[in-house]
């Protein structure tokens, strides 16, 4: 395996063969972890119409994935508190590299590449200290671990790349330890936050949600840097505050919606391709809610059993569910395809046609108050 990997890496470095692109993997637009009906786990690639382009076996349950910005490589992360992540060649299904979390760390199921695809970042738990860490891996060099830094909170979950190349981390605030599985150890004192961090691990800005029992979990970033935030309430559901928010660096935390309608739980979040809408899913209440990104008004509400994955299409949104459905978010939901799979929590957009579109659009139209100065 390592020989082959070395061989491939050598060829790539030497430019001796054409550099593979996502087109070589059938031009999938999305990645999703899933469970097959026989109980086994896979990473699937779906195209923009919801057709399956590949299915690669995983040794255990995945969670989210990260797509390399140019090469047809996907990193599939094990579900919390997993200790492995696999770098997969999406053309062949080959495992190009295995990331093992260092001793004393486990993964949280999410990670993000930098803009160039040279470095991969992973959210991790230093479980003896109960502190979140960000692992740094060199994608140019077989995904060797090259460093780590603080996540600036406890229980980091999803992380994203900002348009300016910096990183965004959702520190859920919940302390867990692998010895106690997924048991939550610090609910009375939990303090979630959203942290903006540069690639050297310096904290640029941090903000906490208004209520400390709202665990900050899921993120979506618009081309102009507006951040969509999905939270999970750790308390009685009828007391849940708004669990969807937006934030822009230097700005205020802006809540939207009502937590009880989401059963206190946001499973995934995504801006629409045109950037105008922000969608959240709640598998616990079986709904997708769509908000106007600008006003925070709830614009539509769609029922779908066990719905969780959501991602942008070129203009709109697409959702996946635990019953194998892939649907376009029209009213009503438009079922594009159905598989013998339970799609897992996250639908990960691969390429950036949507982003390119967003960027083009935001250059044209977003000159108003939503434009943030870069730091």
């Amino acid at each position, binding site marked *: 395996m390592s020989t082959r990997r070395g061989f491939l890496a050598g060829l790539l470095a030497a430019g001796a063969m054409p550099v593979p692109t996502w087109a070589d993997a059938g031009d999938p637009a999305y990645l999703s972890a899933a*469970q097959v009906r026989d109980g086994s786990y896979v990473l699937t690639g779906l195209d923009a119409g919801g057709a399956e382009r590949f299915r690669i076996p995983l040794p255990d349950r995945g*969670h989210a994935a990260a797509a390399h910005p140019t090469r047809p490589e996907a990193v599939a992360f094990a*579900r*919390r508190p997993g200790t492995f992540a696999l770098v997969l060649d999406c053309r062949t299904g080959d495992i190009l590299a295995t990331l093992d979390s260092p001793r004393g760390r486990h993964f949280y*199921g999410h990670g993000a590449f930098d803009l160039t695809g040279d470095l991969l970042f992973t959210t991790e738990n230093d*479980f*003896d200290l*109960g502190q979140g860490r960000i692992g740094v891996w060199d994608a140019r060099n077989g995904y060797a671990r090259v460093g780590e830094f603080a996540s600036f909170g406890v229980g980091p*979950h999803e992380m994203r790349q900002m348009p300016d190349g910096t990183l965004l981390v959702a520190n859920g605030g919940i302390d867990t*330890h692998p*010895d*106690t*599985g*997924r*048991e939550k*150890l610090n*609910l*009375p*004192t939990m303090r979630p936050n959203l942290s903006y961090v540069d690639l050297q691990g310096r904290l640029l800005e941090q903000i906490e949600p208004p209520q400390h029992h709202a665990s900050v*979990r899921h993120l979506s970033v618009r081309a102009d840097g507006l951040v969509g935030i999905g939270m*999970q309430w750790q*308390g*009685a*559901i*009828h007391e849940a505050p708004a669990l969807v928010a937006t934030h822009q660096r230097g700005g205020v935390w802006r809540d939207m919606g009502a937590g*009880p309608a989401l059963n206190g*739980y946001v*499973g995934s979040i995504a801006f629409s391709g045109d950037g105008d809408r922000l969608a959240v899913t709640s*598998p*616990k209440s*079986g709904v997708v809610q769509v908000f106007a990104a600008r006003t925070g008004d709830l614009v539509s509400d769609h029922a779908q*059993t*066990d*719905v*969780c994955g959501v991602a942008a299409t070129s203009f709109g949104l697409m959702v996946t*569910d*635990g*019953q194998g459905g892939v649907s376009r978010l029209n009213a009503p939901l438009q079922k594009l395809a159905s598989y013998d799979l*339970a*799609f*897992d*929590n996250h639908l990960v957009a691969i390429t950036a046609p949507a982003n390119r579109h967003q960027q083009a659009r935001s250059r044209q139209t977003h000159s108003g108050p939503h434009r943030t100065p870069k730091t």
Partner: protein
Amino acid sequence: MKISRTFTAAALLAPAIAAADPTVDAAVNDHILPRFEALVAATSDLVAADCDAGAAWEDAAAKWIAVSHLRFGPTEVDNRAFELAYWPDPRGATPKALHAMLADGNFDVSDASIAGRGFYAMEFLIFDEAFYEYEGTCDLIAALAEDVHANAVAIQTDWQDRYADLIRDAGNEIYRDHTESLQEVYKAVGTGLEFTIDQRLARPLGTFDRPRPARAEMWRSGRSLDNVSVSLDSLTELALILADDGIDAQIAPLVARAHTQIAALSELEGGADLSLVENPAHRFKVEALQQALVDLRVVLGVELGPQLGVIEGFNSLDGD
């Protein structure tokens, strides 16, 4: 449609009859309220026992275990349940908090870290020699007993004065209808059973190469196995209230199998505190008990859940 609307209107106009769902009503009257009442009585005895608290603590701890699955409503107000029971504690926060309190001589328990309060903290003070040398141990035991009792009373009062009606009558902001009330109670059975499987049994089992007996729940007092038994009894009581006869018939033999296994384990050396997980000849008996409970959990999920209108989805159960 028209007929049913007329009927509903008539029902609304009728003199207020509490529209309690009989199953939820039975869960509240025959399980929840009496079990919390027993906890209050036992913690009252614990306060009275003062320093010589061993037997009273054991009884009160067992009464807590028997309600430890009822983690909704009154137990979740003001961190009451956490203040009664901080476990599992993988970083050893409880002994640290206790050493700090004893070293400072500050026994104002309401100021203390949650890890230094409740039944698990008291177990250290009563059963762990490391705490015998402090002068203040006895006073701290008394202070913690008062704290535990006050919390138990607060939960019971809250159930009696507020929450019993909310869950029984439904049609309010917490439980929109009886399906939601039933689901709340059903979830308590499932999560309670999972806690026994994943924490009370899986923690000491560790791996074959590395069993972890010192991770058993309340091993210092030798309550580990009995807690499994007490919890199973209480969960069974509640499950049988919820289940129809057909499902009762599936639950009963699995519970009987688990109790036979518990009885056999209790006869063995190292059974009570589960330290026999280190003995390769006996360890499998703990694994078999765990499997019996997993089988029971499957019956609940596959049979009882759907009966109560609960479909457990791949994503909805994930929690991430």
